[in-house]
């Protein structure tokens, strides 16, 4: 129960932070939104369902942008504010505090992704006719959770470095490329396939396309439910890895007294 209370308190705290300084939504949404606009302008002579690649990819990018900034900046902000030692010294393990923050970011991530979709539909007049809306929604939420699990791993790594800000900026496009957020991963070099397939969101975006498009020819052979199962499995692996990393990080940072290095 104390863990759940810590999780809830951390969630609430992150929400108050957000409302106190909502400008943080801007960097989270600006990259996916602008990249989606660039892609839609590139697609301007293309018609049909292929344009949905841009819209669905934009939604996924919005979610990842939010998750990445939340995981990178929550640790960095604690450093700047001088609160990181207090957070680590609390009797509740850091993973519950970070999990609470991640849950809030996941919630904002859903809105962020949806906002990209709404703008694409209203401003760019992209017809968003989903083939199977309910399975699409399921894949959308599952993809977000998989991104949150991936973000937790990065959060753990960010505790050990003073360069979380640099890493946060640098990790945006690799995930966009690796997951094939806007194009089929079949276009990537063959050697990169294991890397792409080890990313849970790759399966998530594929599942979203299976649910949204009536004629999806570039899909992975696993199909919608296969994608969902593999994404779920990988997300659990990420979660386990994140918990293990946080235990190590907690020990190393206490031993090296490196937490407060801003």
């Amino acid at each position, binding site marked *: 129960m104390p863990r759940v209370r810590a999780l809830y308190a951390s969630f609430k705290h992150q929400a108050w932070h957000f409302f106190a300084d909502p400008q943080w939504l801007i960097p989270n949404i600006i990259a996916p939104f602008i990249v989606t606009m660039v892609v839609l*302008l590139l697609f301007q002579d293309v018609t049909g369902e292929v344009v949905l690649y841009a819209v669905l990819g934009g939604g996924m990018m919005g979610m990842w942008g939010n998750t990445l900034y939340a995981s990178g900046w929550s640790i960095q902000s604690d450093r700047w504010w001088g609160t990181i030692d207090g957070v680590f010294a609390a009797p509740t393990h850091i993973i519950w505090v970070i999990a609470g923050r991640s849950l809030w970011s996941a919630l904002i991530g859903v809105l962020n992704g949806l906002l990209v979709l709404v703008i694409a539909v209203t401003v760019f007049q992209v017809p968003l006719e989903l083939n199977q809306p309910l399975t699409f929604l399921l894949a959308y939420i599952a993809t977000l959770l998989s991104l949150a699990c991936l973000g937790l791993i990065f959060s753990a790594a960010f505790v050990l470095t003073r360069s979380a800000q640099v890493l946060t900026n*640098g990790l945006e496009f690799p995930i966009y*490329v690796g997951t094939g957020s806007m*194009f089929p991963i079949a276009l990537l070099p063959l050697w990169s396939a294991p890397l792409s397939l080890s990313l849970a969101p790759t399966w998530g975006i594929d599942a979203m396309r299976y649910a949204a498009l009536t004629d999806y020819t570039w899909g992975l052979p696993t199909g919608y439910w296969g994608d969902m199962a593999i994404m779920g499995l990988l997300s659990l692996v990420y979660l386990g890895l994140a918990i293990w990393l946080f235990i190590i990080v907690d020990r190393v940072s206490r031993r090296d007294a490196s937490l407060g290095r801003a």
Partner: protein
Amino acid sequence: MAVYASNPFRVFWSSAVVAKNALFAWLNPAMWITQLFFISLFQMAFFVYLATFVQNPQVSVAYVAVGNALQSVAYVSIYAVCNITGEEKQQGTLQNILVSPASRFSIFVGRAMFQIVNGMATVVIAFFYAAVLFQVDFSRTDFLALAATILVTTFAMTGFGLMLSSLGLYLRTSMIIANIFLFLGLLLCGVNFPISYLPPFLQPISYIIPMTYGTEAARMAVTGSTLSGIALILTVEAVVGFIAVLIGYAMMVRFERIAREKGSMERF
């Protein structure tokens, strides 16, 4: 001390040296090299694969790769330079700088100087990726013209970054502005598609950002234009960059006054 502070060139130089030393004290060299080599690669790869998928006849792989190679300078000239004031604020050193008698202009321009070297290195590496990984044909390239384009664009974009940086004196963080302009460059500056694709009301905005001239000059240099052929474009780009620095200085003075009046100097 007073003599030292009143000499703008010494202030400029010491500020540049301190900025370089501070960067490596804060960021370990391995991380800096990783950033230098990888930050441009994935952005370029993203748009190159996208162009391959879209198969728009007006937007070839070479078009996108060259545009993104030059635009990679924005990560340094916009992001790093724009964050100068924000970082001073976060480190608690902004007030000390502003109460010193030294010229603000010399301090902040000096702080940006190492980023010019950093920016040029980033672009050169990005062009290397364009040639080796994405098979852009450089056989007709006038390398002198391309080098001049990289030099002028880096200086001009650093001037643009300094202008944006002045907002950090007043805002809680300049990172928001940095992010917006970093990505706006992808949309407005002809990096991934011709400016003519943009709605007419956005096209004039493209021409107040130096990168727009840079991407045009870089593509011309890659396809064989000589330095004299792109001289006019580079001159206009340099002028736009210089105007950005002047506007930035005026904004810095103004925002410093507002921040002093409102007591918002330490707000972040």
